[in-house]
């Protein structure tokens, strides 16, 4: 449980810092800011992570396992991410949720889904279909919420009178550290 949360946290940290510092990676328009970007990515995560997990599970179960190709699990999962994310990109553009623009969106997304998907799949060796889906959906919801919360927090800190040397990345790291501390409270909740 804590291990999973830490993986989510690191993923969120990377995403937010990327959104804040690499505007060219932002997949959205001006009025939407760090939080706006986080919101789109959160929505995408909610859809993409379960889909990736599901496809990964099916692939592992019905293709890789019968042919004894377990060693291909990670590259196969990355490939699945690369299939799912652009398709989602197309779908979102069609629904006018994002502007048709830079390639950053797919990049940020694939980093996230890949990270999480790999974490999930390593966690789920031998899990049944139901458990796999449950954990995938739970992880996606947790990731989405965390991402939104962290982005909102990060935005609130933008105008704070933070000592100069701690601005930006150091502060994000300290914040993530305190968050990790808070998540220690969950230790022992689920026997790992």
């Amino acid at each position, binding site marked *: 449980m804590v291990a999973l949360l830490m993986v989510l946290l690191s993923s969120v940290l990377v995403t937010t810092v990327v959104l804040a510092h690499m505007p060219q990676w932002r997949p959205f328009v001006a*009025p939407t*800011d760090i939080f706006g970007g986080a919101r789109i990515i959160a929505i995408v995560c909610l859809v993409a992570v379960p889909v990736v997990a599901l496809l990964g599970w099916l692939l592992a179960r019905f293709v890789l396992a019968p042919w004894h190709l377990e060693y291909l699990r990670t590259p196969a999962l990355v490939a699945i991410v690369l299939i799912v994310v652009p398709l989602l990109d197309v779908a979102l553009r069609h629904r006018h949720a994002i502007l048709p623009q830079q390639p950053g969106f797919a990049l940020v997304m694939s980093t996230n889904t890949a990270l999480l998907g790999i974490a999930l799949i390593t966690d789920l060796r031998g899990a049944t279909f139901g458990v796999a889906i449950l954990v995938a959906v739970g992880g996606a919801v947790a990731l989405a919420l965390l991402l939104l919360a962290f982005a909102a927090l990060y935005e609130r800190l*933008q*105008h704070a*009178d933070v000592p100069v040397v701690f601005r930006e990345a150091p502060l994000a790291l300290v914040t993530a550290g305190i968050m990790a501390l808070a998540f220690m409270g969950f230790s022992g909740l689920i026997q790992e």
Partner: protein
Amino acid sequence: MAKPGVRGGLRLDAHKERSTAQALRAASPAKTLVLPLDQHAGAPAVPLIKPGERVLCGQPIAEPGGTVSAWLHSPASGTIAAIEPRPAPHRLGAPSLSIVVANDGRDERHAESARAAFDQLSPEQLRELIARGGIVGLGGAVFPTAAKLNSALRVQDLRLLINGAECEPYISCDDMLMRERARDIVFGARVLLHALTAQSCVVAIEDDTPQAAAALEAAIADAHDGRIQLRRVASIYPAGGERQLITAIFDVEVPSGALPADVNTVCLNVGTAAAVAHWIRDAQPLTSRIVTVTGDGVLEQRNLDVPLGTPLAALIYDCGGYTSRMSRLIMGGSMMGQSLPHDDMPVIKATNCIIAASALDLQPRAAEMPCIRCGNCSEVCPAVLLPQQLHWYAAARDLDALEMYGLADCIECGCCDYVCPSQIPLAECFRDMKPALNERLAARSSADAARARFEARTARLERIESEQLAALAKKRQELTKKSS
């Protein structure tokens, strides 16, 4: 949550009994009267007279300088001493072009032509007549009344709201007016109903003014006019704010950026209604108004009927002069009034109250501390804004966020400021940020308008070109036909 209703606000110490203890009296005439030409909202008025000319009391001395502007009348008989820039209270002491009348004290009245009873006139004629009386909103916004009536007429089924809810502390001029001249208010309301062809009128007052309520009830009963009714609202500042009052009385909210007319309402101050009555019934244009002189810094705290243009110094002298504790001169109430740098300025149409404040009236501000996000400000905000967020983004000059959090809807009532434990001057901070935001909104709308004109022009040029091409082709065809 979506249900409209008055939210926020504060119960404040009213400090009104100090100035309502004594009856209304006329102020002693001043020797010189100073009348700024831009004392109303809209375009400045244009003088009709030259320096040295003799004028009579009530004679028009300046005419409207635009569609939204107002007439100006001489408050006394005498000669025009000058037309020159003089310090003006609405500009916080900065000079503004003014007509200076030297009062000869003879009080000769300008003869108005006899006129028919108001219900003999058509609404259009009546509105035109109201405009000629120089009547503007006397609640403080000084918007020309006739312009307000005319612009409201684009809406059907108007209802009239006469605002007697004088919510701001210290001010009692409307309370005094309602006590002593309730009949004028009711008469004015009937005139305005006719001018608007409206069918109902609510006179709204606060529930802590029993004498005014009794006087108005009697006057309404005497008028035998079933269209007019009296309604009381809780005396929670800012109950008398136009939008807040409309919500309290009619249970609708005025949409952001819209006018009361958009919810079928015309809201006018009781003083405005009384001024309309004086003009239409008694042929007295707006040359004087009731002013509350109060505060611990003046000897005699009371309400006076003051000719416009009377210097504040003369008015204070009339009330016994300053006390030794006098420290701050405020035009308006203690929440929204403006602090004036000196008293060599005239009473204008917007002057409802002069507070000569001493340290006993003022609460010294403690040192400003950072916001601790206690949220008291958002609880009292009548516009349901989040002042703590606005302050946060105003400090960072983040116009995007200020727009999103609704700075444009701030009514600058000062409630947030009043309750802030960190003693942050929030109202001032918002007043400072508003021009930048307005400039940005204006730039956006003018860009939109320019785009529309450009597109219209492009379309027109294309159409003309295609028409010319078509005509050319037609001609060529005819020529070939002829030659063949």
